[in-house]
């Protein structure tokens, strides 16, 4: 269920502005990789290039290669829709579909793929909500609107929705930044459990969070305002936070800037 990602020579643009430049890295399967770095360093942009969500913004484009196992996501005959089914995404702010019930939210992806059988959908709902540690809280109100849940619950609902389609990779774009500490903790625990099945990439603003949840950490930085973001280094989380090999990383970790 989990695949590795190899990125080589990747740059992304918004119109004529270059947002990230020449990034190469490998992301291990069944592990958590965290992206950290100051605001505007392109870590979210980079994350969105990994499932071709970057290009849904008008004028945005990507150069370079992203290999999922051995398939290049940016090859000309690749269908971005299929890519997004294989690589799920959880966003910064919880975004359950406001007009749908909890149940419908979870199965939204499967319904799109044409799954109609009630028994299959029921199974998936239960499995995904259990996987997202939400089943106990909502199993008796599956037909209530998803928007009626608390922020933390909504975010776990979004995770359930993302894992319901059984992706190989799960991308998380600052999934806890809109949540309170207790909800954040619940999500962090969940990430720890999910990594046994999925390759997880998480962008976070919070260095403690990166240290807590991730196996490997990538530090991004930019030379100045208006300059494209670059990958500074990628290493085991322990090493990054104890003994990074680049001075800029150490400065950032120890709070000297950013």
């Amino acid at each position, binding site marked *: 269920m989990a695949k590795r990602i190899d990125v080589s020579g990747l740059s992304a643009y918004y119109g004529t502005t270059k947002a990230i430049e020449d990034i190469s890295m490998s992301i291990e399967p069944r592990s958590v990789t965290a992206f950290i770095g100051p605001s505007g360093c392109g870590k979210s942009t980079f994350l969105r290039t990994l499932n071709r969500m970057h290009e849904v913004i008008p004028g945005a484009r990507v150069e370079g290669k992203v290999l999922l196992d051995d398939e290049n996501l940016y090859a000309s005959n690749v269908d971005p829709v299929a890519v997004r089914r294989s690589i799920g995404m959880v966003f910064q702010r919880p*975004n359950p579909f*406001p007009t749908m019930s909890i149940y419908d939210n979870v199965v939204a992806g499967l319904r*799109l793929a044409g799954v109609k059988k009630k028994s299959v959908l029921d199974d998936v709902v239960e499995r995904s909500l259990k996987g997202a540690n939400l089943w106990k809280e909502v199993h008796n109100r599956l037909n209530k609107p998803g928007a009626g849940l608390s922020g933390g619950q909504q975010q776990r609902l979004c995770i359930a929705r993302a894992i319901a389609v059984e992706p190989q990779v799960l991308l998380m774009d600052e999934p806890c930044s809109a949540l309170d500490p207790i909800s954040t903790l619940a999500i962090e625990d969940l990430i720890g459990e999910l990594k046994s099945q999925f390759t997880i990439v998480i962008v976070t603003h919070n260095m403690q969070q990166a240290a807590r949840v991730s196996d490997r950490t990538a530090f991004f930085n930019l030379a100045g305002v208006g300059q494209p973001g670059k990958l500074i280094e990628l290493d085991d989380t322990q090493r990054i936070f104890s003994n990074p090999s680049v001075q800029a990383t150490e400065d950032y970790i120890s709070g000297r800037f950013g």
Partner: protein
Amino acid sequence: MTSSSPAAPRGRERRPRDSRVGDKIFMNLARGAGILLLVIMAAIAGFLAWRSGMALSNNNGNFLTTFEWTPDAPKPVFGIAVLAFGTIVSALIAMVIAVPVAIGIALFISHYAPRRIAQPFAYLVDLLAAVPSIVYGLWGALFLIPHMDGLTSWLNQYLGWTYLFDQTRTGTPRNLFTVGILLAIMILPIITAVSREVFRQVPRMHEEAALALGATRWEMIRTAVLPFGRPGIISASMLGLGRALGETIAVAVVLSANSVLSLHILDAGGGTFAQNIALKFAEAGNNGRDALMASGLVLFVITLLVNGAARLIIARRKEYSGANA
């Protein structure tokens, strides 16, 4: 600056002070304007009802079921059956054509068109809304009708079996179908404009949620955009319906009026409330005028209901989206 004291004393004060008097006058002026508006609305209903009552008491036919319109005859007979039928059928045809097309155009502007086209095009559609209805009517009569000949006989030939498109009398296509098409073109801009705004308000994060689940663009629109925009589309359509029901002069120019009530929408003839008023008004006598007022009152009530419904839907939508903000 009439008053320079920063904190006016609380409570009612008898001593007239400039600022207070000024405030009171101004506020009552503003409130008076608001009240005058309510009075006008009440007066519209009241005067029409009063005149209608006079006409109805002289009517020897059944106001609801009679086909003829001869209120000035020695023995006045008039009814709104043909008019109500024509008004509703032509408006429905207009809706059936205009609503899907308008949603398409709105989606085109909000989600499909390249940006360079979208903005000027949205602007053009807005300008289309400003074209006076008499010009639409003139265009309909002198340009559209000659071009409808072929389409009409075509529909009759291939879809005649549906009864609806069966043409039983030949003649110029001055029929309810043509009127429906013309009305559709006229209400397109308003429906498009409102739907477009609603579609633009769909939060980006909902669209991205759908895309990230592996939705194609159309599936994204179906899961995220249309459900969110549904109340807006409904109320936009109601606004369009209101206009179609009340349109006068374009219908008067295009439809050849007679008192035939027929579901063969390709047969020339029929009538609508507004058209009937416009055409019969000039030569109407006293009772004739009152009878027209009665039909106008019915039209007024119908449009009131349609618009009221639209407003209620919009109001509900506001609460609903507030809960999810």
